[in-house]
Each structure stands twice: as C-alpha cells, then as structure tokens.
C-alpha cells in the first residue's frame, strides 16, 4: 500500500472511532451505558442493526460468492423481511413494555430463572467464539494479502474496538456503526463503478450483464426443493425466516441495538428499514461480485487467489512442473475466451442473442477443470490448505485494480465492518453477563456507578478474550466454518424458548427448560452424526427450523404430562 493509502486508512478509522467516543462521552449510569439512555432514532437503529449483521467477512465473502456461485445466495435473505415484521408485531411490544436490558430477562418474567439462564448461557456460548472470529477472519485475509503480521493485525483491530466499546458502551457502538455503515456502502458503490469503467471499451454495461447471464451467473431464483442445497427459495423463505427470527429477535447482539430506541415506533422502523433495504443491498453486493466475474474475463485472474498457497506449491520441486503446466493451459484458455468475448461485444448483433456462448461456456468449463486440477496440487502440497479462496477475490481486485487512495479507503471499509460487528458482540456479551448472570445471581444490590464499572470491566474482559480467540484461531483447522455451524446449532433452541414464551401461554418454565436442554443435546448429537455419516448431512439453515419446532413439541408434551 502507498503512503496515501495508509494515511487514508488510519485517518478514516481514527476519525470514526474518535467521533464515537466523543458522542458517547459522559455515560454515568448503567441504563445510559447499556441502552444509550433509550434515546436512539430509527435511522441510527436501522444502520446499527445492518452494521452488526454485516461483518467484514460479509463484505469480502459476498462479492466472492457472487464471483464463484452467481446471484443465488440472495435467497438466503428472503426470510429476513418476514422475520422483521413478526418481531415488530410480537416481540418489540413485549420487550418495550417490560423495559428489559436483555431479551433473556423476558424469559424469567414469562417462565423462571433457570429458563432465563439457559437462554443467556446458550447466547454467551455461541457468541463468545464468534467475537474472536469476527476479528480473526478479516485479519487473516488482510495479513495474507498485505503481508501484515497476523497477530498484530488481530491485536490492533481488537484494541481499537475495546477502546470505544468500553468507554462509550451501546451509544458508542451505535454511533460508530452509523458512520461505518455509510462508509461501507460508499466504498462498495465506488468499487462497483470503477469495476464497470475498467471494462474494455467494446464492452458496455449491458454487454457485461448479458455475458454474466449467458455464463450462468445471474441465477437469482432456484425453485427446486432440495434439503441439501443451502440456497433456494424454499430454504430462504422457510428456514431463513426462523434463522432471522432467532438472530434479530433473540440474539442480544441485535436485540440490544433496538432496545435503545426512543420509542416503540423508532425501534420498529429501525428494524423495518432493514426489512426494506437488506435484500436489495445484498442483491447489489452479489451483483458487484458478478461484475467482478465479468471484469476478470478481461483482466487475467490468478488460478488460485491465495498467493501464499500458490507460491508454496511453486517452491515444491515435486509439483512445480505440473503447476506451471496448468498455468500455461490457464493462460491459453483465458486468451481464447477473452478474444471471443471481445469479438462478440464489438459485433453489431445483440450480445444477448449470441449463440457463440456455447463455445465460450465450453472454454469456461475447461477453465474450471484447470482450476480444480490446480486445487488438487495445492492439496497435495499442503493437506490443510483452505480450498475456498472466494474471500480473497474482492481484496485482490481492490489491491490490484483500484487507484491509490481508494485502496486505503476500501481497506478502511473492511476494518470498519470488522469493528462494527465485534463492538456489538462485545457490548452484548457484557450486557448479558452483567444483567443476566452477575446482577441477577451474584451481586443483587449496588449503586449504578458500581454496575457501570462492572459493565466496563466485563466488556474489557470479553474484548481480551476475543483477541485471545483470534490469536489462537490459526492453531485450529477450519475454525471459521466451525464457528458458523456453532451459531446455527444454538439458534433453533433459543428461538424455541421464545416461541413457546410468546405463543403458548399454557406452557410453564420447567417444561420448556427441559425441552430446551434436550433439543440442544439432540442438535449437537445430530451434528456429530452428520460428521460421522456425511450422507446424512443437510443444509445448516434447517437446524433453526427443526430445533425450534422440536422445542415447541417437547415443551407441549412435557406440559401435558406434568398436568396429568
């Protein structure tokens, strides 16, 4: 990176953090610290909710997903608007009326202490590792491609987040997230515009869209029902609704974003803002990835985007010749494909009607075969290499094809996304620890200042733990995948507790508590079975729906047995 990129990156990051600390100065009580004195407007809530969900890896992975797999990932978000409406109708009025700090407080008022504790502990388990991964995942990519030290990258991201989250609490998190989200969206738009302008002069934007479509990248809707397929319209609408109900309605890292709303209306509109804009936003980010696919039809990409792995295989004398042979095939297929595409775009006929795509797609298939063969060599060289390089595609574009200054801005965007998610997670972990565990079970009385200090210390402790997890993350194989799965293993049970609480008034605490415990054990058992027998595996989204439904059924069963 050039000096100007460094200056822009550091300047932008510090400006946002300083603004957050300045705006949130003077939190004197626990309500101000944990709920921002309930003074937040809908636009702050809306952007804060959006920024919490959109971690750095989202902004690196989603364009990469579009690049590799096309547009169908957008179906993953179809359940979100439905879930938001349900939460606005059912959950928000209850949380608002009870004036809770955490979602799990409601479980005690509806059931009992043990069910509240179960919900809080499940949340703490699922989020504590995730907070470390939210730091580690972008750090490893930045460190790899920018040749930074991974440990110092993790420590730097973690420390900056700790500074403003500990000092300003929820208000600092929300205020910085508003700026971070605005910057992220600006950065993505700029990257997209530059990408289109950098296409060859013969290729118009319309041609680029037709090329993407004819090469199978504009497959937004998949109507076939397949349990093993993660992204189709049915898994998005059904299982996705349950996932988002759990995430936005019961996960404290999101609930806390809207509990600080000034009124019930501000909370609802903040959530509905996401319901309206999230799907189009994800569509545009995926479309950016698809345009990047077209862009790399005219700018030769590497076979594999992780340069370190490529260099490693090239330095292995047993594999160098084979890899170089593949590189030659890659080069010649690329040139043949590029020539045909430019000729098509320059021809007077409408590119959308062209039959030549049969030949181009055959070349693309050869291209994909060479890539698979290269991956086999990478695996032969390093059994533990990560064969998913989609996270590195967008960053490769940023570093190699954006002008000076914008590179720094886009790296700042990635850091902003990492910090916005991590700060919300630390804030929520601290709130749940203080409100649901410490204040409820151990220190029942004390001054506001006392609990404010405990909240700050707890935030600091979770921050240090998150950095610790991030530092040790590279000691464990594919931890990113492990943590993602970990989250989905808990969401179904947590949502089940809340669904029973909201809709099944006759069910009491003991029945739902044991149903929750059993379903959590069954979910973990089922996951282990799918590892032992991979043919039993199914898309992780379905864990949410099945887990939730099982908690409801078992709780009803236990309640009826208890009555008898």
């Amino acid at each position: 990176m050039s000096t100007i990129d460094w200056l822009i990156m550091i300047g932008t990051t510090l400006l946002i953090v300083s603004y957050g600390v300045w705006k949130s100065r003077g939190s004197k009580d626990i309500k101000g610290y944990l709920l921002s004195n309930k003074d937040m407007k809908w636009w702050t809530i809306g952007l804060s909710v959006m920024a919490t969900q959109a971690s750095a890896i989202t902004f690196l992975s989603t364009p990469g997903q579009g690049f590799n797999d096309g547009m169908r990932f957008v179906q993953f978000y179809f359940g979100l608007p439905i879930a938001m409406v349900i939460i606005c109708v059912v959950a928000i009025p209850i949380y608002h009326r009870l004036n809770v700090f955490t979602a799990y407080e409601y479980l005690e008022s509806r059931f009992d202490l043990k069910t509240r504790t179960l919900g809080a502990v499940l949340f703490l388990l699922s989020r504590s590792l995730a907070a470390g991964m939210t730091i580690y995942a972008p750090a490893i990519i930045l460190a790899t491609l920018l040749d930074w030290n991974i440990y110092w990258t993790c420590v730097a991201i973690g420390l900056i987040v700790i500074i403003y989250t500990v000092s300003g609490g929820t208000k600092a998190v929300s205020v910085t997230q508003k700026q971070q989200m605005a910057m992220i969206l600006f950065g993505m738009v700029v990257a997209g515009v530059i990408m289109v302008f950098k296409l060859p002069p013969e290729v118009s934007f319309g041609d680029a869209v037709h090329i993407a479509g004819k090469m199978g990248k504009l497959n937004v809707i998949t109507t076939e029902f397949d349990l093993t397929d993660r992204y189709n319209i049915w898994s998005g609408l059904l299982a996705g609704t349950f996932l988002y109900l759990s995430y936005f309605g019961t996960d404290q890292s999101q609930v806390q974003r809207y509990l600080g709303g000034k009124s019930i209306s501000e909370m609802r509109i903040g959530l509905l803002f996401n319901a309206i804009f999230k799907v189009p936003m994800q569509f545009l980010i995926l479309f950016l990835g698809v345009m990047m696919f077209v862009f790399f039809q005219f700018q030769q990409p590497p076979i594999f985007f992780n340069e370190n792995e490529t260099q490693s295989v090239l330095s292995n004398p047993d594999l160098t010749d084979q890899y170089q042979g593949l590189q030659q095939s890659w080069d010649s297929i690329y040139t043949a494909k590029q020539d045909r595409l430019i000729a098509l775009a320059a021809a007077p006929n409408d590119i959308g009607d062209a039959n030549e795509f049969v030949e181009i797609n055959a070349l693309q298939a050869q291209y994909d075969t060479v890539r698979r063969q290269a991956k086999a060599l990478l695996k032969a060289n390093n059994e533990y290499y990560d064969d998913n390089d989609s996270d590195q595609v967008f960053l490769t574009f940023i570093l190699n094809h954006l002008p000076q200054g914008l590179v720094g801005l886009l790296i700042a965007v990635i850091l902003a996304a990492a910090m916005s998610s991590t700060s919300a997670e630390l804030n929520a972990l601290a709130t749940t620890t203080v409100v649901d565990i410490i204040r409820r079970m151990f220190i029942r009385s004390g001054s506001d200042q006392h609990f404010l200090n405990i909240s700050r210390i707890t935030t600091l402790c979770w921050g240090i733990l998150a950095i610790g997890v991030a530092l040790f993350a590279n000691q464990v194989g594919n931890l990113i995948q492990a943590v993602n799965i970990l989250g989905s293993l808990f969401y179904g049970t947590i949502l089940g507790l809340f669904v029973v609480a909201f809709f099944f008034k006759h069910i009491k605490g003991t029945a739902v508590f044991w149903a929750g415990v059993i379903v959590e054990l069954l979910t973990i058992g089922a996951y282990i079975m799918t590892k032992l027998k991979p043919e039993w595996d199914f898309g992780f989204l379905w864990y949410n729906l099945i887990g939730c439904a099982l908690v409801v059924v078992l709780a009803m069963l236990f309640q009826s047995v208890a009555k008898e």
Partner: protein
Amino acid sequence: MAESPQEVKEQEDKELREIFPLFKSWRGLYTFVLAELVVLIILFYLFSRYFS
C-alpha cells in the same frame, strides 16, 4: 387505568404517522414490506429468466 388494545393500536398508528406520514397505520407498513418482498422475488425470477 389500562388502555384497551384498540387505544394502544391507535396511539401506535399516530406515532407512526408523526414519523412517516406516508403510512397511515402499522398494518399498512407491514403490508408494504411484505409486498416489496413479493415484488422483489418476482422481479428476480424474471431477471433470472431474461438473462439466462
């Protein structure tokens, strides 16, 4: 004295109108959100078909 559900609903709708005069009631806003989803899915489907 506790407010009736109807009074609560009217109060909430009034709050919404103060922030967003475009929508007269929460029911209208929820309908808009879900209708937008349906329209988006239809548009995405047509988009997929047109460019495939």
